[in-house]
C-alpha cells in the first residue's frame, strides 16, 4: 500500500476541515468590527463559542501530520513562512484569548471585540499569504529552505490574502444567516451581498495571476483541462445558488452552497499540485518519513478519526438550532 499517499490524503482532509470550520469562525470574527451594536456582537460570538476550539484543532492536526509523515516538507516550510506563521499564531492567540476574556467585564468588551476581530482578520490574511507563497514557489537548497524569509511579500500572495479573507467572510456570513435571528440575520444578508462579489473578483484575479506567473499552473491546466474546467464550472454554479438563496426562506442553503464552493476550490488546488507536498518543488514521496512512522500515524487516523468526528458532531448537535439571543443559558 502507498502509505505516504494515504498520509497525504489525511493531511488534505485535515486542512479542508480546518478551512471550512475555522473559516466561518474567522469570518464571524472579522465581521465583529463592522457590527456597532454590542448585543448583536454578543449574539455573533455566542453562535461560535461552544465549538471554535475543536475547529481550530484541525490546524494543529495538519501541522503535526506534516511533521510526522513529511518531516522534510515541514522543516522546509516552517522557516520559509516563518514570519507569516508567527504572525498567524499570535493573531490566533489573541482571537482565542478574547473568547474567554470578553465575558469578564462589560467595560472592556468593545476593546476585546476589536482584538478578536483584528486577530481574525490578520489570521485569515496570513493564511492567504502562505497559500500564495506556496503556489508562487518555495526556494529549496539541498534539503533545507534556501530563500529569504520575506519571499512571500509579493503582489500575488497579497491577492491570495484578500481572497482567503473574503472567502472566510462569505462562510461567516452564511453561518450567521443560519444561526442567528432578526437584526443579526439582516446584517448577515447585507454582508453576503457585498462579500460574495468581492470574493469572486479577488478569487478570479488570483487564479489568472497564478496562471500568468507560474508556468507550472499552466502546465497543470493542460494535463487536467477537463477535470479542472468541471470544478470551475461547479464552483460557478455553487456561487449562483448562493447568490440566489440570500434572503430566501431556506436558512441552510447558503451555507451548503458556500461550503461546496470553498470545498471545490480546495479540490481544484489539490488537483493542481498533486502529487507534490511542496507545490512544484517536492513530491510527497521524496519528503516522506519511513514506513513505521506512517503506520503509526495512519492507524491513529483510521481508528480515532471516526470517534473524533462523532463527538464533534455531537457537540454541534447539542448546540443545534438558533443561537438564543440572550446567550446559551438564558
Amino acid at each position: 500500500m502507498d502509505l505516504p499517499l494515504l498520509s497525504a490524503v489525511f493531511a488534505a482532509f485535515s486542512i479542508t476541515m480546518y478551512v471550512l470550520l475555522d473559516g466561518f469562525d474567522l469570518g464571524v470574527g472579522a465581521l465583529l468590527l463592522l457590527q456597532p451594536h454590542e448585543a448583536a456582537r454578543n449574539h455573533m460570538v455566542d453562535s461560535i463559542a461552544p465549538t471554535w476550539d475543536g475547529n481550530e484543532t484541525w490546524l494543529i492536526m495538519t501541522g503535526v501530520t506534516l511533521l510526522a509523515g513529511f518531516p522534510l516538507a515541514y522543516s522546509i516550510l516552517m522557516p520559509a513562512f516563518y514570519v507569516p506563521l508567527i504572525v498567524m499564531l499570535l493573531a490566533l492567540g489573541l482571537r482565542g484569548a478574547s473568547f474567554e476574556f470578553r465575558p469578564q467585564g462589560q467595560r472592556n468588551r468593545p476593546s476585546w471585540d476589536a482584538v478578536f476581530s483584528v486577530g481574525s482578520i490578520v489570521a485569515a490574511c496570513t493564511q492567504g499569504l502562505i497559500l500564495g507563497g506556496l503556489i508562487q514557489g518555495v526556494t529549496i537548497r539541498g534539503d533545507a529552505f534556501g530563500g529569504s524569509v520575506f519571499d512571500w511579500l509579493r503582489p500575488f500572495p497579497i491577492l491570495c490574502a484578500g481572497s482567503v479573507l473574503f472567502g472566510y467572510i462569505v462562510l461567516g456570513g452564511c453561518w450567521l444567516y443560519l444561526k442567528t435571528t432578526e437584526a443579526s440575520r439582516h446584517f448577515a444578508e447585507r454582508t453576503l451581498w457585498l462579500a460574495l462579489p468581492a470574493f469572486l473578483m479577488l478569487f478570479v484575479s488570483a487564479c489568472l495571476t497564478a496562471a500568468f506567473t507560474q508556468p507550472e499552473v499552466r502546465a497543470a491546466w493542460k494535463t487536467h483541462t477537463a477535470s479542472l474546467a468541471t470544478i470551475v464550472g461547479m464552483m460557478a454554479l455553487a456561487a449562483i445558488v448562493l447568490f440566489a438563496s440570500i434572503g430566501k426562506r431556506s436558512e441552510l442553503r447558503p451555507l451548503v452552497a458556500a461550503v461546496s464552493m470553498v470545498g471545490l476550490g480546495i479540490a481544484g488546488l489539490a488537483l493542481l499540485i498533486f502529487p507534490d507536498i511542496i507545490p512544484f518543488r517536492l513530491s510527497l514521496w521524496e519528503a516522506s518519513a519511513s514506513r513505521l512512522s506512517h503506520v503509526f500515524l495512519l492507524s491513529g487516523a483510521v481508528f480515532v478519526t471516526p470517534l473524533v468526528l462523532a463527538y464533534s458532531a455531537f457537540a454541534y448537535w447539542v448546540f443545534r438550532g438558533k443561537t438564543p439571543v440572550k446567550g446559551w443559558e438564558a
Partner: protein
Amino acid sequence: MNLDAAMLARVQFAFTVSFHIIFPTTSIGLAMFLTVVEGLWLKTRNPVYLQIYRFWLGIFAMAFGVGVVTGIVLSFEFGLGFAHFAQIAGPVIGPMIALEVLTSFFLEAGFLGIMLYGLRRVGPRLHFFATCMVALGTLLSASWILSANSWMQTPDGVAMQNGRLVVTDWLKVIVNPSWLYRLPHMLTAAYLTASFLVAGVGAFYLLRRKHTLFARKSVSIGMAFAAILIAGQVFIGDILYSTMLKHQPSKMQAAEGFWERQSQSPAPYYWVIIPDQAHQRNRVAFGIPYLGSIWLTHSLHGRVEGLKSTPRDRQPAMGMVFYGFRIMYGIAILMFAVAVASLWLRWHGGLFTTRWFLRSLVIMAPSGIVATLGGWYLAETGRQPWVIFGLLRTVDAVSPVPSGTLLSTLIAFIFVYAFLMTAFLIFVFRMIRRGPEAAPDHAEASASLKNALRLLESPTANAVLGR
C-alpha cells in the same frame, strides 16, 4: 551572551514553552478537581460543592483558553526554530503528537463547549460526563507529550540510517526508560498545583472572614489532596532521581553543584553556588555540612560525583540545572512541612482558625507552578548540549532563519504574552475579590450553573430533567 541564531531560537523556545506550561499545569489539576467536586455535588446535592465548581470553572476556562492558544504555537515551533530537529526527529515524535491531537485535543475541545455552555441543554449527568472527558483529555495529553519529551531525554527504539532516524520499535519509543517515572511525577505536580491554589484561595477568604462555608470546604479538600500527593511526589521524585542518574549522569552532576570528579568528604548539601563554567569551579558555594553525604549516598562520609566526570563538550551549564533543582526541591520541602502542619491542625481542630497556617497557605498558593517550572528547567537545561540526548546536538538542530528575524519575533512574543498574562491575572484576581457568590456578569460558564442551581431547587425542573 552571544546572540546567534541558535541562542535566540533556544531562548524563544524556552520562553514560549515556559509560558505554556503554567497553564496546562493549572488546567490539568483544576480539571481533575472540578471532576471530583461535581461528582461530590451530584452525590450529596450539597450546594456548596456547586458553588465551588462554579467558582473554579470560571478560572479554569480562562487558564484553558490561554493554554490552548499558547500550545498551538509550540506545535509549530519545532519547525520554526529547530527545522533540522524536526526533519530528523519528526518521524519519531510527530506520530506521538499526532496521536495526542487525535486522542486528547479533540476530546478536550469537543466536550469543553458542553462543560462551559451546555448544562441547560444536556442536564447534570451528561454534563458531569463532559467534565470527566475534559479531565481525561488533559491526562492523555500529558501522557503523550511526556512520552515525546521523555524520548528526547532517553531515546530508545530507533536507528540512525543515512542521517535520519528510523523507528524500529514503537513500544520502546513510547515506553522509553524515563517516561514511566516522569509521567506520574508531572501529573502529581499538576494535581499538587491545583490543590495549593484551591487551598490558598480558601485560606484567603478565611483570613478575611468571608464566604466561610465555601472557604472551609476549599481548605479542607485542598489540604487533604495536598497531603497525600506530596508524600507520593517525594517518593516518585526519589525514583526519578535514580533513573536520571543512571541515564543522564551529567544532568545530576550539574544538579548537585560539585565540580571535582569526587567531591570532598563529607559532602555538604549546597543551596547557593556561583558556578564558573570556564574554570570548572565554584566561585562561591554555601551548603549544609554532611547533608550531601547523608542524602545522596546515605552515609556520613560518602563522596558525590562532580561535573568534571563528564567531558567538557558534553557538559550542561551548571547554574540553570542546579537552581532548577533547588527551587523544585526547596518547594517540595515547604509543601511537605505545610502538609504535616495541616494534618496536625486537622487532628486538633485548628485547620480553619490558625492564622499563621492560613497565611502560609496564601503564600504557597502559586508554589506548584514555580516548582513545576523549576523541575522543567532541571530536566531541559540538564539535557544540554543535546536536544536528543546522545543523538543530536542542539546547535545542529536550528533553522536557517536570520537572527534579526528571530529577535523581532521573540520581542513580539514577549509583548503579546505579557498582555495575555496581565489580562489573565487581572481577571483572576477580580474573580477572587468578587467571591464565589457573584457570578461575573455575562460569564456563561458561571451563569449556566446558577441556572442549574435554580433548576434543581424546583420540583418541576426535576421532572423536566427526567429525575
